[in-house]
């Protein structure tokens, strides 16, 4: 029987992002480029459409799933659900159009109690195996039983209170509590059979296409409701396996300045979601060069190849387990305005794109963003803290320490939201704020991503700051800064300053001058016009000639 629903993650798979989803298609591209991707397969969007239509997994999918899992067992020399060396899988959503944070993802699926015991025996690390089992159950609690993250956190915290120290007893207690929660909230317990777990997880991801949140998101972004999501199933790789493991996100070029150096976050001994949460202090990826030189070399090589393929700056999510590198996702673009100008000019100089394409790559909006002001670095300044500049620009406003507080205070003037870290639940506060500061997290944290998306000046990882939301203040050094105090965020220099320092407009960089020079050659106009006008005139000429706009490329958000 020919495969109809499932497609292997291999170089030979020919389906596009409409079937495989953007994430699945990116993984196929990585395989074609000869890069390390955990073995797996993609259940195409057609199966999701059938599931949503009929309310059950389509006929024949069960048999295909079983066959695909057998192939995965053979490729990894592991058994799904154990015993012996157990295979666990990640089950990730991903449609052809990105809907960040809207749909479900489950990790460690198939890690039954028996398989977890097998993992403990294999690794000799019972704590690691229990932690993996807890993450597995947490995924089911959230995706299948509909338990809110706050409630899940509360249950795990309560179990920790009964057996403090974060050791095996604490984890075993937390596992029992989450199991009880699932029994109370769902129709039944998480199945003890790995295959049934996988079917349940796939159904949960498909169902998440139609949650009210996802529907609203599509309504607002003009995404058709009938596309459906693909599901990517891959053998788990564990960034929390040991001290030679970790996870990270790396940009091939600095997403703020465009400088041609790898830039991003790495977290040693942790799983992927920990990087994005911004709850952990991350390290610059170049630290891998000293600690895991093979991983670093592999990463640099991978960035080079994906740039060559996409002919653009890219970001890559990766995990390394026991010193071995795996790539989990690739995405082109994601640059601030200033970086977009520099990268377009540099790529033209490197011969990856032509000058005309360089002009089409930079939008007038990015050009406006590129002329970002900075705080004056001379004279008397009251520097409170330094962090990483996550989005360039300067914003002055009154300090708020909660998202809700920011919304309330914004009625009275600009607000700077100062948080330990942010999550999608803080979006209303981020939206209401003129600038954003976090004390934890790196350039790929939630706060940084949102700040860049909205063009809000932001500093992340300002580690000297302590946010005390209960007391409504921020502490730094020996000083207490109450809510309502006027501060300034410089997202270029990564600085948080007291009061309202003097601001200078950024000098025109050589990259911008050259790009606009090329624009004038195309449009036949002179340099005596505004920047935006010069760029827009050239783009109009190029688009009229039928030059393809750069936005249609695969995987672009």
């Amino acid at each position, binding site marked *: 029987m020919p495969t109809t629903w499932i497609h292997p993650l291999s170089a030979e798979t020919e389906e596009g992002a409409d079937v495989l989803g953007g994430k699945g298609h990116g993984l196929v591209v990585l395989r074609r480029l000869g890069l390390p991707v955990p073995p797996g397969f993609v259940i195409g969007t057609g199966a999701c459409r059938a599931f949503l239509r009929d309310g059950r997994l389509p006929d024949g999918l069960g048999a295909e799933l079983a066959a695909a899992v057998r192939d995965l067992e053979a490729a990894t020399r592991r058994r799904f659900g154990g015993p012996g060396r157990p295979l666990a899988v990640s089950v990730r959503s991903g449609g052809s159009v990105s809907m960040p944070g809207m749909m479900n993802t489950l990790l460690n699926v198939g890690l039954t109690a028996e398989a977890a015991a097998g993992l403990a025996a294999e690794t000799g690390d019972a704590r690691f195996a229990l932690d993996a089992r807890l993450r597995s159950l947490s995924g089911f609690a959230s995706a299948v039983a509909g*338990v809110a993250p706050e409630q899940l956190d509360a249950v795990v915290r309560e179990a920790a209170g009964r057996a403090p120290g974060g050791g095996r007893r604490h984890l075993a207690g937390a596992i029992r509590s989450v199991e009880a929660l699932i029994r109370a909230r769902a129709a039944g317990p998480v199945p003890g059979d790995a295959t049934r777990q996988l079917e349940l997880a796939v159904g949960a991801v498909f169902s998440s296409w139609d949650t009210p949140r996802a529907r609203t998101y599509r309504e607002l972004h003009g995404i058709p409701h009938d596309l459906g999501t693909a599901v990517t199933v891959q053998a788990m790789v564990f960034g929390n396996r040991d001290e030679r493991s970790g996870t990270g996100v790396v940009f091939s070029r600095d997403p703020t300045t465009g400088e041609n150096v790898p830039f991003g976050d790495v977290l040693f001994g942790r799983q992927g979601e920990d990087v994005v949460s911004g709850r952990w202090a991350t390290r610059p990826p170049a630290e891998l060069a000293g600690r895991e030189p093979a991983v670093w070399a592999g990463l640099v090589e991978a960035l080079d190849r994906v740039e060559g393929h996409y002919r653009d700056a890219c970001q890559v999510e990766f995990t390394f387990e026991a010193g071995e590198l795996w790539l989990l996702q690739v995405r082109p673009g994601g640059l601030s305005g200033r970086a977009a100008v520099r990268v377009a000019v540099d790529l033209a100089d490197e011969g990856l794109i032509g000058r005309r394409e360089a002009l089409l790559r930079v939008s007038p909006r990015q050009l406006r963003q590129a002329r970002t002001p900075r705080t004056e670095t001379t004279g008397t300044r009251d520097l409170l803290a330094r962090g990483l500049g996550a989005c360039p620009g300067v914003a002055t406003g009154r300090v708020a320490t909660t998202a809700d507080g920011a*919304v309330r205070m914004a009625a009275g003037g600009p607000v700077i939201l100062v948080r330990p870290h942010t999550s*999608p639940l803080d979006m*209303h506060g981020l939206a209401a704020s003129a600038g954003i500061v976090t004390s934890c997290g790196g350039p790929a944290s939630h706060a940084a991503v949102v700040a860049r*998306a909205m063009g809000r000046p932001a500093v992340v990882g300002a580690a000297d700051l302590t946010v005390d939301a209960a007391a409504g203040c921020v502490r730094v050094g020996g000083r207490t800064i109450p809510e309502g105090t006027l501060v300034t965020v410089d997202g270029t220099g990564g600085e948080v300053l007291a009061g309202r320092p003097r601001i200078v407009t950024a000098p025109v960089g050589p990259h911008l001058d050259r790009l606009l020079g090329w624009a004038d050659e195309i449009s036949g106009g002179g340099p005596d016009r505004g920047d935006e006008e010069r760029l827009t005139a050239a783009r109009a000429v190029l688009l009229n000639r039928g030059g393809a706009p750069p936005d249609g490329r695969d995987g*672009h958000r």
Partner: protein
Amino acid sequence: MTRTPYPTGDDLLVLHALRCVGSAGPARLSEATGLPGPDVESVLIDLAVAGLTTYSPGDFGGWGLTEAGRAADAERISRELDAAGARTAVTEAYEDFLVLNPELLDLCTAWQLRPAGGVLVPNDHTDPAYDSRVLDGFTDLHRRADVLCADLSAVLLRFRRYRVRLAGALARAGSGAGEYVTDDMESYHIVWFQLHEDLLATLGIPRH
């Protein structure tokens, strides 16, 4: 089984409203409790004599709780919950609320920012079609939120005010007063935030 919803006395009603609203004047507390303004003022003065509330003058002033007032509210509202036999019902409503909460936050964000060319830009409210799509989202969410508030009101009468206030904010927003989505002190977002705070305070759950 039907039973009469448990009524809250005026003094606890005002004390607890201050706990959920934060610093406020009699007019806002009247809105939150449904009591007439002069009654609220009279209760506030009694509470102040008992050392539970305090008044600060000035533009940003108003009535607020003292430390003792906060502690008294926590103790009395918890006692009321058990006296009403409502702990299970309110716990379940809170769990349902946590599922609806991300939706509300998405919608508030969509009201403030809109997608344009792959990035989010401030919503300048010049596109009625977009704004009405967002308001449709609020209407859909409100149908489910109202069921939740009705369940709460069936055990504790004081939660009925949230039905009235949320429906009022939505109706005003729908008839052109856009500030009743996120900006006004009686906007949908602010009333929702107070409901969240109320559920946490009632169940004795600390924020974060």
